[in-house]
């Protein structure tokens, strides 16, 4: 299954390698990884989506904590967080494209339905920008493909995530955030399954 982790890490050279190396060592494939500035000076925020068995999450989280560069780790379920992705799509849309002269108007319509924006218009192509859940983006791409549009380029940022509501972690509270509220962190949870947590390589049924 897919796990989404948000990690606050030191903004220093080599930090990305340390985080990436950890996933490599656990033999867990990273689906997407975004890094950018956070609300704190010198701290970057990473959103890491990875494909691992359900019970692996605790150990990945604990291993992330072990890195000296890590300040906080949160694992987000889909229901409690806003998860967004940004995507740029370049589509052939000129007289010579599959839909010919009508390409542009049809793409405009699709963009409208999917709440995507046209950000570039060239004689032979259109670039769309779309923000949303990964499934929405995949929906637009699928419709474009099935309608025989020629997709020239796709660039996706990977997922970014933030907890809903007035939540800040217990750790951030300890680090001195004014707005923090106490949330119980039951760790480690005993996994329901009897599979051993270190069997990452096995695929789930």
């Amino acid at each position: 299954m897919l796990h989404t982790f948000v990690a606050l890490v030191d903004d220093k050279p080599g930090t990305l390698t340390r985080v990436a190396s950890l996933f490599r060592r656990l033999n867990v494939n990273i689906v997407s990884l975004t890094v950018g500035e956070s609300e704190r000076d010198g701290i970057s925020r990473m959103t890491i989506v990875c494909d691992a068995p359900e019970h692996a999450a605790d150990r990945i989280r604990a291993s992330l904590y072990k890195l000296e560069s890590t300040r906080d780790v949160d694992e987000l379920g889909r229901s409690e967080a806003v998860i967004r992705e940004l995507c740029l799509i370049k589509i052939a849309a000129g007289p010579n494209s599959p839909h010919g002269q009508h390409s542009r108007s049809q793409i405009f319509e699709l963009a409208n339905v999917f709440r995507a924006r046209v950000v570039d218009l060239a004689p032979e192509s259109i670039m769309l920008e779309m923000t949303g859940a990964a499934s929405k983006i995949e929906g637009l791409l699928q419709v474009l493909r099935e309608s025989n549009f020629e997709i020239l380029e796709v660039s996706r940022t990977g997922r970014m995530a933030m907890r809903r509501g007035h939540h800040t972690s217990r750790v951030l509270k300890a680090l001195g955030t004014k707005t923090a509220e106490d949330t119980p962190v039951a760790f480690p949870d005993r996994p329901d399954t009897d599979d051993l947590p270190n069997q990452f390589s096995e695929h789930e049924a």
Partner: protein
Amino acid sequence: MTHPTLTGAEILWATLVGEGVTTVFGYPGGAILPAYDALRKFPIHHVLTRHEQGAAHMADGYARASGKVGVAIATSGPGATNLVTGIATAMLDSIPIVCITGQVSSKVLGSDAFQEIDITGITLPITKHNFVATRAEEIAPMIREAFQIAASGRPGPVLVDITKDAQQGTALFNFEESAPDPFRPHPMLRAESTEVSRAIELMRASHRPVILAGHGIIHSAAEREVRAFAERYQIPVATTLLGLGAFPASHPLALGMMGMHGESWVNHAIQQADLLLAFGMRFDDRVTGNLASYAPNAKKIHIEIDPSEINKNVLVDVALIGDLKEVLGTMEPLIHDKSYLADATSDNNTSQWLREIGAMKGDAAVRDIINLPDNGHLYAAHVINDIWQEAKAAGRLDKTIIATDVGQHQMWEAQYFKHEDTRTLITSGGLGTMGFALPAAIGAKMARPDCDVWCIAGDGGFQMTASELSTIGQENLHINVAIINNGFLGMVRQWQEAFYDKNYACSPILSPDFVKLAGAHGIPGAHVAERKDVTPTVTKARTGSSPFVINFSVEKEDGVYPMIAPGSALHEMVLRPNPLIETAEDE
């Protein structure tokens, strides 16, 4: 107060002095020469090793014997890569060492300059953390943070790579202001009070508890607390290899070493327990046997500082994350509140359980080689036993440090040398590094010059780092070396005997005359091939004033028993042959 402007090299040593370092182990070379040039101005003793691997192992042995952070220093390129095995050894056993490597000038970084290697990249997975300093002003804060990281939480090795221009440049030196933020355990990594209560409930319900005593006890300096805990609740204590010494072997509650070569009653007790209290241990595959059948009826309480160890190999019922000493300190008053005491009137009386464990010992002692009549053959067990008896008779068990290599002799040492005191056994448990014993013994002797230090090594492993004999000569250290010489890579041979149809592929090893080898280094030595000569020679070595090398020619095809085959359950062990009087040569 004004602060002096120093070169980076001077800042390096001044910071080490400030951190309390008196001894470093190293090997000079081009990229670290500015640092070596400045060394003479500082009150630090530098031990010149014969190989950088030795430097890392010596820093490791120093740290294990003293509890302080060990320091190894090497140049860039090959100097740095030679440290790697030593760093990995420290990583797997959670030993606090700081390794300092020279690096080519920052201007040519990444250009494949002479002796340039990306040592921080190489050591990323085998260090707790590592740093690169490219400017003089970065050195003091990085070294100070390295010391803090190495020693705090779950300890481990830290590497600081310092470019040549950083050593040559100058900066203001202010030791106090270079201090990192004080170490705070992660707020998440704390034993929750609800968990503590659950642990106490499990204890109250238990009639057959066993404490699994690990290396964490020594790291946490919780030996007294664990002993008091075991005594108060009358819980028997099984020990991991690295936990030996954390609980006195002669204590009535001490069971001995658990795991692959642990005594049968220890493993049976674990398998039949209804509660395991794991104190600073990590359920390594060498102590659990087959996980599917490990202690099937036992509830498990895991007190551990590293949350990534929780539920890694064995699913536990309660995890108390934190420093063992602190967690026990939090637990004990709460237990008293609930009047849990193992007195005769309590339901939690363990005397029946202790009697059962006593009965499990059965005839194990009778089959022990130590208790068999002399059959003219010298066994490694005799040698270890006699070294132990010698230390005991001299009343110096607490002042005898044994550094072992890896293999059969390591297991015999664990079985037959009864460690009473903490930090008296220095051995590579996690990585299993052959060649560890001799340099580790040198590090231990530097840390504890008042102790009798024995290096016990096999004929194979000894030759991996035998060049450090020359270091012993140069430093004039009174270290006793016992080579358990059976002409084989013994543990390999035992596995080939057990699992590979006695196909002794490449396990017979031809060794030099070790006494002559020692002599070439100006170190006296002796050959011993008979039981009666063991004790006199050991006494001579111990009471002398110079290093001494003893070559013990022992039984060639002896095996370590009991033994649990890989994949077998912890209670399915192969016991000692009965009786072990016939030998390969008699057949």
